[in-house]
């Protein structure tokens, strides 16, 4: 699936999206929600980039800003090398054909008064694709592609289950044969058995239409399953970016470690064995994010430097970047090689705050056992287990 070294389809450069909070007589701006705060990364053609984080971390805002459903406060988004952050409505129009979004709530995102056929045909119509009959033919084909029956053409959304509605949403997104699909929590509202059907469908479609996905989700199990690379966000910041498997085996940022350890494992023994890091407290407000490293109030490795200096994104090799003063699961060798990633340096970060800071304040916490914090990997042999017990 992954196309290593492929050309970037999307480049996000120091992207910021703030929402003003207005108050008082003249609606003065009294504060800002730092929804997306200086995020830089790129997405290669044909890959799936997973975007994870808790509610309020800005992942959905980021997704919507990339496809320009929201206007960025500053920074740039490039699509196929062309800056789209400042394009107007007219300029965006051809791009809308190439970038589509699938929303989380299959119940709220389809117009209940429109027939399924016209919902899916709407993008074709807007972009003037084909005539009526041609569009109708295409919609029927699309319905079949997403696993619905073409006879569903004349039904209304309420006649479908949640999973089927999500398929309609996907069909609508596919109508214009886009290159990029931003899937914003596409399976969160679905039951487990339906969720896996949906994930498999997205997988098939990617192959068939050579799609690039930005897959936003809070479920790390789902994200791992679909993604080639994963970006972890916390309070508007990109805190870790890594190839998918590596992130799960070797999380560098303590927040990622805690997230992974909080995922329930449907296996009682493994669940008992593993070390659980239960983060204390809630995610702080994105209006007044904590100083330095935004994760420091909840971090168990927190030291003074974390309060004072915002850690830069550091490249630990193999495309694994993380922003942390006390990186986990990193051996000395890697640490020596590690460089503050030029393209990913947050503007505010201090060059001296690299982990190899001579002051020693930011020496990594010793990690005697690299496997310590990673999720225990073991395969249970179901055919043998019960006999062992008896």
């Amino acid at each position: 699936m992954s196309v290593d070294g492929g050309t970037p389809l999307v480049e996000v450069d120091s992207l910021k999206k703030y929402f003003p909070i207005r108050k008082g007589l003249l609606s003065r701006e009294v504060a800002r929600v730092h929804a997306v705060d200086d995020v830089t990364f790129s997405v290669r053609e044909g890959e799936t980039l997973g975007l994870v984080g808790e509610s309020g971390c800005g992942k959905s805002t980021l997704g919507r800003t990339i496809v320009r459903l929201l206007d960025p406060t500053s920074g740039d988004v490039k699509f196929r090398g062309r800056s789209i952050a400042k394009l107007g409505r007219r300029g965006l129009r051809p791009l809308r054909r190439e970038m589509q979004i699938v929303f989380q709530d299959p119940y709220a995102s389809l117009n209940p008064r429109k027939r399924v056929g016209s919902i899916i045909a709407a993008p074709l119509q807007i972009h003037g694709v084909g005539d009526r009959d041609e569009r109708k033919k295409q919609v029927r084909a699309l319905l079949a592609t997403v696993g619905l029956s073409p006879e569903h053409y004349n039904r209304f959304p309420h006649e479908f289950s949640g999973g089927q509605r999500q398929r309609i949403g996907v069909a609508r997104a596919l109508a214009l044969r886009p290159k990029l699909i931003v899937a914003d929590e596409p399976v969160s509202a679905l039951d487990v058995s339906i969720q896996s059907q949906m994930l498999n469908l997205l997988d098939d479609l990617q192959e068939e239409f050579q799609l690039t996905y930005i897959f936003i989700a809070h479920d790390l199990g789902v994200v791992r399953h679909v993604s080639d690379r994963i970006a972890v966000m916390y309070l508007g910041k990109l805190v870790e970016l890594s190839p998918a498997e590596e992130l799960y085996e070797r999380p560098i940022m303590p927040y990622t470690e805690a997230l992974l350890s909080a995922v329930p494992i449907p296996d009682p023994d493994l669940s008992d064995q593993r070390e659980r890091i239960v983060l204390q407290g809630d995610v702080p407000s994105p209006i007044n994010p904590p100083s330095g490293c935004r994760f420091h109030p909840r971090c168990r490795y927190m030291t003074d430097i974390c309060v004072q200096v915002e850690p830069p994104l550091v490249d630990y090799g193999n495309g694994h970047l993380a922003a942390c003063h006390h990186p986990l699961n990193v051996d000395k060798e890697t640490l020596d090689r590690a460089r503050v990633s030029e393209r990913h340096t947050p503007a505010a970060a201090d060059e001296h705050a690299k982990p190899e800071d001579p002051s020693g304040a930011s020496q990594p916490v010793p990690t005697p056992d690299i496997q310590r914090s990673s999720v225990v990997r073991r395969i249970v042999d179901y055919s043998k287990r019960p006999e062992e017990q008896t």
Partner: protein
Amino acid sequence: MPQPLLEVKDLRVSFRTEDGVVKAVDGVSFTLSPREVLGIVGESGSGKSVTMMSVLRLINDPNMLVSGEVLYKGRDLMKLGKGQMQEVRGDEIAMIFQDPMTSLNPVYRIGDQICEGILTHQDIDKPAARKRAVELLQQVGIPHAGSRVDDFPHQFSGGMRQRAMIAMALANNPDVLIADEPTTALDVTIQAQIIELIDKLKDDFDSAVVLITHDLGVVADIADRIAVMYAGRVVEFGAKRDLFYDPQHPYTWGLLGSIPRLDRPKASRLYSIEGTPPSLISPPQGCKFRPRCPHAFEKCMEEPELVSRVDKRDHLDRCWLDPATKRVTRYNTIEGGRAA
């Protein structure tokens, strides 16, 4: 086996609708022992919430039909008068709900809402109830409980609201705490906090817990026994380890296989249960899971009963497949089809 605290016998709940009678709960039976954690797992529409709401008789719908027995300490709750039922609710059996954002009344202070429950069931005065409310908030881990007690719900985060709900439910030392998807609306890290809290408090308060969830991962941690529900019925019921390591029903296998798992190498393709849950108005003939079951055979057109395994009396399931076949066929499903 100890005397059950709660025993549900052949509970049936249906709703008359314009399209026909919806059989939401269709003959559910189970027992709950003191201090036990029972997990009820199922997808939406499986009847798991309706079952537990009916135990507390919380559904107030003129189109509802209920039958069956709910024995709590030997008394049939279904036969109690309204007043007697109110004495049971919140005092002996308490319940918390899925969405902490909407489950607290937005116009009253958190403390007042906790006190209200205490004053209803205990013979103490208001200052004492308030003191108790602060203690409870401390116990569920609300920082600065003494001042936060006067906050309104909207001043609490989602996780804190769920903690407040738990404090409210435990206010009268109930013997049974029913938790209906208590973590579904919360973030993973907060979810872990809440599960840990319930696990700790059930010991502090000597309560049995019924944990309703759609997530097998959640019950893997704290449940003692698990019931899997499908289309209004219990399809498998057994001790946690039996259910996870020796599951008997193809639906349970499917559930286990459909979850993208962190503890296994990445599957190239997820196992998925084909089709959609059946209509509860005109369910399929025989086994309700038959149309989606890859192992269905002729016999499945007859209705299977919930029966004990020959070698394990307390592990029940509703499936015609013989144990040997199950052992051979389930591996692929549970392993998410990875081996295939």
